[in-house]
Each structure stands twice: as C-alpha cells, then as structure tokens.
C-alpha cells in the first residue's frame, strides 16, 4: 500500500485538531499541546508524501470509492507535495510564535482560545486546495481557508480590524462567486469538474469558449493571488491583523491563488494563448507593487506591497510556460512563502520591542537587540535577492528563462525583474537604516520605549524596571529564528530543491503523469501544444 493513499489525512488531521481544540477551549495549555502535536504530525505525513512523490511520481487517491471522473480525487504530485511541506512547516512556526505571544500577553489583545481551532481549519483548507484534483473541491478548499481567514482577520473585533475585514470579506466573496460562475460554465461546457478529465475535454472545445473559461478562472484566481489590477485589497487589509495572522496570510493565502493559476495554465489550458497578457500583468504587478512599497512608512504595509510585487515574479515564471521558467517559479514560490512569513514575524517582534511598526517612530534597534537586527537582516536581504541567498537563485532562474525565451516582452520582464529587485533592496535598506541603524533620538517621533531603555538598563537588578519595555518571549524569537534558518536552508539545499522543481515543472507541462494517475494508464492524452517539454 502506497503512502500516497494517506494523503487525505493532510486535510483530516488539522480538522480533527480543530475539533479537539474547540472542545478544549477552556484549557489553553492542552489546546496548545494538541494543535502543535497535530500540526507536527501533519508535517511529518507531508514529508512522507513528498518522498513518495519524489520516488514513485504522481499518485491519485479516489475518495468514497467513486471511479475517477465522477467522484472527488486527491492528487499528490511533486508540486502539490512540495507546497504542502513548505506551507505546513511555515504554519507550524507561526503557530509556535502565536502560542508564545498568547502566553506572554494572555487573552487581552485577542481571544486566543478561538485562535487555535480557526487556525487549524485554515491549514486544512490550504492542504485541501493543494491536494484537490477536482475543480469544485478546489473551490471548497478555498472557501474553508477563506472563512477561517475572515475570523482570523477580525480577531478581537477592534475598529481597524473590522474596517479591514469588511474590504477583505467582500473582495474574497466576489472572487469566490466569480470562481463558482467559472465552474458552472466549465461544467455546462464539458459536463465534468474533474481536472484530469477537463484537461482532455477542454481541448475539444472551440477557441472562443475556451478563452472565456480560461479568462474567468484566471480572474478569479488573480484576485486571490493579488495580481496587479486585482491586488488593491491586499495592502489595505493584511497589516491590521495580529502579527502571526498577517504572517501566515502573507505566506500562504496568495500562494494558494498562485498554485491554482499554475494548475489552470499547465493542466487545464496548456498552450500559450494568454501568455502575453499574463506577462504584461506580471510586469505591472512587480513594478506597481514595489513603487507602492517605497511610499509606505509602516513596515507591515511596506511588506504587504513587496508581497504583491513579488507575486509578479511567479506569474512571470508561469507565463513563460517553459520547463526552466516554471521550475524557477515553483522554486520562487517555496522561497517566497518562507521569507515573506519570517519578515512579517520579525515585524511583529519589532512592534513588540520598539512599540511601533512605523519607521518614523523607530530607531536604534540594532543596538538594543542585535538578535532582532540579525533576524530582520537575513530574510530582508534574501527577499531583495542578494547573491548567496535563495531569493537570488530564484530570480536568476527566472531571468535565465526569460533570456532563453528571447522575445522583446521577455526582455522587458527581465529588466523589470532586475529593477524590482533593486527597488526591493532600497525599500528594505530604508527600513534597516531607519529602524535599526540610526539613533532613537533621530527618529521623527521616537517611541518613548526606545528612549527610556538605557535608563532601565542602567538601573540594574532590584531597581524598578520601566514596565513599558517588553522583552521578547523566547518562543517567539525561537520560532522566528527557526523560520529564518529554514529560509537559509533553502539556500543551502537549493540544488536538490531546484532538481525537484525541475521535475515538477517537467511533469506539469507534460500533463501525462497527472492525467494517467487520475484516469488510469493508457488514457489518450491530447498532444501537448505548448512544446514546453522540449525546451
């Protein structure tokens, strides 16, 4: 019996955890233990799934005993299992961080007891979306994670969170309705929602219908992935949520949208009909996002804009529909999930230590807390793409693929990618110079916490320490450091990871492994029109 048949457990275990933590809502210690234990178990299972996908290729699990085109299918291939492992590792780190914050703060800032069940439901939704081999089940996965995210976004129900939550909920619901309309039209046109079956049947439709369905799906996923003209909601809603929640949203939710776009482009609509518009959109996403980041003074908002901007890189890699480009995009998604989440976690620590997340109020943090400075510096440089780090490797892969493609638009995107990378460096360096490097007294409106610290230090033991100076809980720093180390590990093990992304990209562009895994060997797979397999 193959380990891949246990794939549904990646969804079931977090839901089980959610049920248990909901029962244990009055016992916060047991709640913490259960949620961390179940998430670790899920992560271990997903590592096994990744190993199985690496060794024996794509596998499909049929649920409820229905024969594939009719029932719900879960598909474990290299891309989906890689996404599962990275997302669960990141969610585990954020969960530890959040429990650290909860233990330090108590229930004053946010009702932590409801946090655990909701968070586990979110993880289940993300896993379901990654594993789904069925368009409607993908929609259900999206809805599970979105509904959980509505609750997490408005945790505590304070004014700014409710205001941001309204925008977020309305935009998400509209995108879900668009997705559902697209599913209805796909079903009307082909009579199936199974993705492997669709891969064959969509090819038989006429070009006009195909383009309509393609655009509908891309718009629905584009809103979730925050691709430029549809990204307006993200910087507005993410920064107000609690730090761990923002971190996990930034890392995972947009990437689920990107994942769905990758599946749409490679499996359902192969070929390059919409590649040109996608490339233009990718260029605009990169440039508009990063220019927005430069205008911000709040670190969380700045990072939200860099998040939008770097989605552009992934769409760029996807739009090239070549093995090199898609492999680089897969690598970039794994890198970006880790880095963006760790940056948001560090920002949470900065806010805690410095009393604010606005660079106008911060200063001198490098001297106050060298550990914090290190934790910000490494992922910051990684995000900007400074040579040894994985951000650099991912970008180099994308740029190489762009040059290999060689069209004028690809060259424009290569230039745009380099400019975006430099502007990201500028944005990160500005945060670094202001929040960490200068003296606190040089800040425009220095936070009293920063100014009062030296006296608190000097007063020594026994003296009344200024109670506004909060030191950082060890669990929070530890989990952030763990995530930063994971980001560095992606650099160290970039070779094997690139090998995995390359194989994943090859399989996705080939389509045969996926379709045969679902519909059985010997299924007639229509010719691959993209020609990507040969590149």
């Amino acid at each position, binding site marked *: 019996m193959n380990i891949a048949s246990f794939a549904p457990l990646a969804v079931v275990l977090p839901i089980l955890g959610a049920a248990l933590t909901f029962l244990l809502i009055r016992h916060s210690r047991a709640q913490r233990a259960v949620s961390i234990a179940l998430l670790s178990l899920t992560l271990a299972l997903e590592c096994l799934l990744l190993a199985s996908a690496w060794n024996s290729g794509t596998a499909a699990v049929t649920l409820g005993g229905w024969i594939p085109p009719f029932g719900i299918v879960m598909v474990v291939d290299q891309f989906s299992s890689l996404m599962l492992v990275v997302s669960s590792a990141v969610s585990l780190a954020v969960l530890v961080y959040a429990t650290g914050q909860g233990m330090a703060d108590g229930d004053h800032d946010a009702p932590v007891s409801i946090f655990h069940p909701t968070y586990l439901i979110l993880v289940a939704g993300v896993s379901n979306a990654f594993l789904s081999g069925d368009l409607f089940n993908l929609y259900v996965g999206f809805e599970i994670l979105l509904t959980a995210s509505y609750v997490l976004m408005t945790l505590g*129900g304070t004014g700014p969170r409710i205001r941001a939550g309204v925008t977020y909920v*309305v935009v998400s619901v509209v995108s879900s309705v668009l997705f*559902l309309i697209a599913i*209805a039209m796909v*079903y*009307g046109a082909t009579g199936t929602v199974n993705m492997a079956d669709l891969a064959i049947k969509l090819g038989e439709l006429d070009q006009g219908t195909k383009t309509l369905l393609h655009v509908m799906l891309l718009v629905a996923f584009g809103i979730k992935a925050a691709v430029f003209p549809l990204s307006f909601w993200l910087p*507005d809603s993410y920064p107000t949520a609690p730090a761990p929640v923002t971190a996990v949203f930034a890392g995972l939710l947009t990437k689920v949208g990107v994942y769905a776009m990758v599946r749409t482009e490679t499996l359902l609509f192969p070929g390059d009909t919409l590649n040109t518009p996608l490339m233009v959109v990718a260029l605009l996403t990169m440039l508009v996002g990063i220019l927005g980041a430069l205008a911000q003074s709040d670190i969380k908002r700045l990072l939200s804009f860099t998040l939008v901007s770097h989605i552009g890189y992934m769409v760029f890699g996807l739009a090239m529909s070549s093995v090199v480009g898609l492999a680089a995009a897969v690598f970039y998604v794994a890198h970006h999930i880790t880095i963006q989440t760790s940056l948001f976690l560090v920002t949470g620590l900065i*806010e805690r230590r410095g009393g604010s997340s606005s660079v106008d*109020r911060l200063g001198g943090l490098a001297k106050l807390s060298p550990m914090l400075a290190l934790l910000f510096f490494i992922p910051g440089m990684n995000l900007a793409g400074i040579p040894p780090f994985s951000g650099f490797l991912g970008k180099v892969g994308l740029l190489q693929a762009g040059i290999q493609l060689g069209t004028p638009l690809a060259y424009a995107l290569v230039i745009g990618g380099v400019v975006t990378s430099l502007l990201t460096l500028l944005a990160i360096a500005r945060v670094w110079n202001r929040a960490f490097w200068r003296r606190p007294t040089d800040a425009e409106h220095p936070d009293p916490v920063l100014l009062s610290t030296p006296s608190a230090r000097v007063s020594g033991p026994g003296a009344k320490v200024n109670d506004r100076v909060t030191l950082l809980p060890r669990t929070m720093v530890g989990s952030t450091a763990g995530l930063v180390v994971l980001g560095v590990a992606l650099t160290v093990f970039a070779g094997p990871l690139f090998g995995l992304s390359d194989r994943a990209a090859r399989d996705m562009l080939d389509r045969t492994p996926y379709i045969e895994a679902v519909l059985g060997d010997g299924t007639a797979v229509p010719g691959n029109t993209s020609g990507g397999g040969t590149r």
Partner: protein
Amino acid sequence: MSVNLTLLIVMGALYACGIYLILERSLTRVLLGLMLLANATNLLILATGGYAGLAPLFTKGTPAQEYNDPLPQALILTSIVISFAVTAFMLGIIYRTWVLARQDDIQDDVEDLRVAETPSYDAEDDAEVPAETSEFPLTMLGSDGRNVSDHGTPGMDADQEADQPVATLVAGGREMPAEHAAAEEKPGSLNVDPSPEGGGK
C-alpha cells in the same frame, strides 16, 4: 436542449441588482448584493444541468437521458451552505461596525489617508538648500536660499525678488515658507498626528 427562459431572466435580474448593490457604501446593501450574486450563481449552476428530468433514482427500463443531472444540485447545496456561513459572518461584522462606529458605511483607511496627505516634501531630505561649493554655480538655486519658490519664474525683476526674501515651496497642496514645512514633520505639528500608543496598533 431546451432552455428555461424564465430562469435565465431571473438570473440576469439577480446579477444586475447584486452588482448594483455591492457597489454601494452601505454595508447592509453590500451584504444584500452578495446574497443576490450567490443566488444568481446557484441558478446558473442549475441551468448547466440541462432541462428537468426524472429524479435520479435508478429504475429498470428508464433510458439514461430521462434522468435529471444530480451533480449541479449537489454543487448548489454546497454553495448554499457556504454562502449561509459567509452571510452570518457578514451580519456579525456589520453589527460590530455599528457598535464601534455607529454607522452602516464602509470606513476609510486612516493610514491610506495619511499617506495620501503626506506632502511630497521630506523634511530630512529637502529642507536645507546646500551651500553652493562647485565652481559652476547654478543660477536657479542660490546659496542664500533665495528664489527657491516653485512659482517664481527665473526671469523675475530684481526688486520683485527683494520683496520676497523668504524661500517658499509647495507642500501638501499649499505654499508655505521652507522652515514651516520643515516643522511639519517634527513632533507636535498639527499635520502629523501620532497616536499615543504607536502607529501600527
């Protein structure tokens, strides 16, 4: 395949009303709009199932095409449950907005407004016009800080320049003396209002 025209017209009307309503600023109307959109989509899914047929319970001797397609109805059921959850949550949010702000409108983002109102003039970077040390002095920016005004044309009369000794510049949509603009970004200024507990909270 015959199409149920009534259903299609109702669906179109629901979409039209729904889109009109979600563009309103009042939250209750937005919620009603979302509900109409969800129901219109349910009708669309129903329409994809083809014309009405027998209940999909297997009986011997009935040809396959006389049964109704059960899958769209299963999809609709799921989508109804999901929109039910979302509607309940939206009602909660709307009530909370009412409790907090005593209005049923979408609130503006304070930070957005602040960024929009920030003058492009930056006190740190732009305040001092550095003394001219190069051997090719610029005629536009004098080392004494005169004639920095964006409005002054370079070819102004000498006596007119003398009447205007204070360097001015455009900041935040109005013209102000340079030192006032520099004070704008210092603590205690009315333009930038730091909240007591810090920016990000």
